[in-house]
């Protein structure tokens, strides 16, 4: 009997109907499954053995687990040992998710007076280095004096890191707050934490700052920053000309430069699938501890 294949049908999937003449019931469900298998084949092959399905925002949350992309300083053993130490430190102190622009409170034990602690509240203006050396800078204005404090977040002196307000800003580095008007880097020291719903996307704070008049610490006009409003107001003609002269508009198309600054996806997946289970476990433990602490505070004793 002649049978013409419909044009749109996938020949390789449907061909079993043509060749299995004696099979009494060719299961329709099986073909669907086979279709699905073919569709998922690419995904399955991409995910190599031993790796897990890693959430998309994991690389932003745990950026410090990724090694430095500079080829000269890559060392697989060093990276592995660092990751192990970082996980151990994280099991002692909860290091929450935060970004440049979020407001943090860091409590550190004071090396000069035993048994006492210092704490500082400020906006996170930059993240430096990676691995165990990860360092953040907090900025605040206290008594009309701008203060920047740098903390190594894996420092054993650190007692507690709290996120008072989780948000992102328009730029990845906000050192220009040093030359901005003080109102933009002032934070209430006794601020209470603002809670976000779990799984909600991190909000982006789109405030644009105003700068103080010259002199500035750096040539901010050359850095293509999105978060500054009145740059041109203070620049003279020579400085404007220099900005145009020194501009490198081709740099954003330089694919290999971009590649040399990142860790490719395969390597990221390998690293994150290694720490995935452990870090989820640590986070859950910290959550339980925090709940228990809250419960003890909310029950005041009756005074006779």
């Amino acid at each position: 009997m002649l049978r013409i294949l419909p044009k749109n049908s996938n020949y390789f999937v449907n061909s079993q109907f043509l060749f299995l003449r004696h099979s009494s019931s060719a299961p329709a469900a099986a073909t669907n499954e086979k279709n699905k298998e073919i569709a998922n084949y690419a995904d399955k092959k991409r995910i190599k053995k031993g790796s897990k399905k890693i959430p998309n925002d994991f690389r932003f949350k745990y950026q410090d687990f990724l090694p430095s992309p500079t080829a000269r300083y890559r060392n697989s053993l060093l990276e592995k040992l660092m990751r192990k130490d970082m996980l151990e430190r994280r099991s002692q102190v909860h290091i929450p998710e935060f970004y440049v622009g979020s407001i943090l409170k860091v409590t550190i034990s004071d090396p000069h007076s035993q048994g006492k602690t210092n704490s500082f509240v400020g906006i996170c203006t930059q993240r430096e280095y990676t691995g165990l050396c990860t360092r953040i800078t907090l900025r605040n204005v206290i008594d009309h004096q701008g203060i920047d404090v740098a903390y190594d977040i894996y420092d054993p002196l650190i007692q507690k890191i709290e996120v008072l307000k989780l948000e992102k800003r328009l730029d990845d580095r906000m050192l220009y707050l040093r030359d901005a008007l003080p109102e933009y880097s002032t934070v209430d020291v006794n601020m209470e934490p603002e809670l976000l719903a779990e799984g909600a996307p991190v909000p982006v704070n789109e405030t644009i700052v105003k700068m103080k008049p010259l002199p500035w610490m750096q040539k901010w006009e050359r850095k293509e920053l999105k978060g500054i409003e009145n740059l041109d107001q203070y620049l003279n003609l020579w400085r404007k000309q220099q900005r145009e002269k020194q501009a490198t508009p081709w740099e954003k198309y330089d694919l290999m430069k971009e590649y040399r600054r990142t860790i490719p996806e395969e390597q990221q997946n390998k690293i994150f699938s290694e720490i995935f289970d452990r870090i989820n476990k640590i986070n859950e433990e910290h959550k339980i501890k925090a709940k228990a602490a809250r419960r003890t505070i909310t029950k005041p004793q009756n005074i006779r």
Partner: protein
Amino acid sequence: MVGKPLKSLGYAEVTKLMSELKVPVLPRHRNLSSPLGPEGRINKLRQTVTALVKYERIELFHNRADEARGYVERLVSDARRYGDQNKEMMEMASYWLLEKQLVHKLFKVICPRFHDTFDGPFTTAYNAPRKYPSETERKQYFKRVVLELKGHPFPPLLPQASYQGKYLIHNVLLDAAMKDYYQEKKLNAMQNKKEEVTESVDEEKELDNQIKE
């Protein structure tokens, strides 16, 4: 290590995801000398990338070929990853490919050429022979390379494995010569036998004649 941060441990940028390249990547770029500086370097590379996508097989100096190879690899792998609906990807493709029809070629011809699971290098590079240096062209004595996109329609540069031994021209000729040689040898042997037989017959006749006499 804490408290004494190494400057080398600068963090990796993670905003854009990209797949690992299967070709060797140098830790630092090459400065292709140009009066325009870094911009001139990029312009040179744009021309090479465009030529490779257009002709699919080009011969050029090793320095520039190796530098351009990474850019082509990334362009193809990104085009496969993001597709032609992505605005940034289209901008990138139209920057690197100087002719507009080549952008269509990248998404409609070159990307579908590779199976979804194929991650490997999309280009091949062969070492080509150098020019022999003369007094006038002493500077031209650089390594040369043939770069090609995989799956191109041209005949292969390297001999195929099936043609390696048996069907090479000198082996075919040698086989034929050997065949001829042995056939000749056989024929000679046959002829010798016949001659022997006839000789023996003659001898017998002579003997008979002698007896009769």
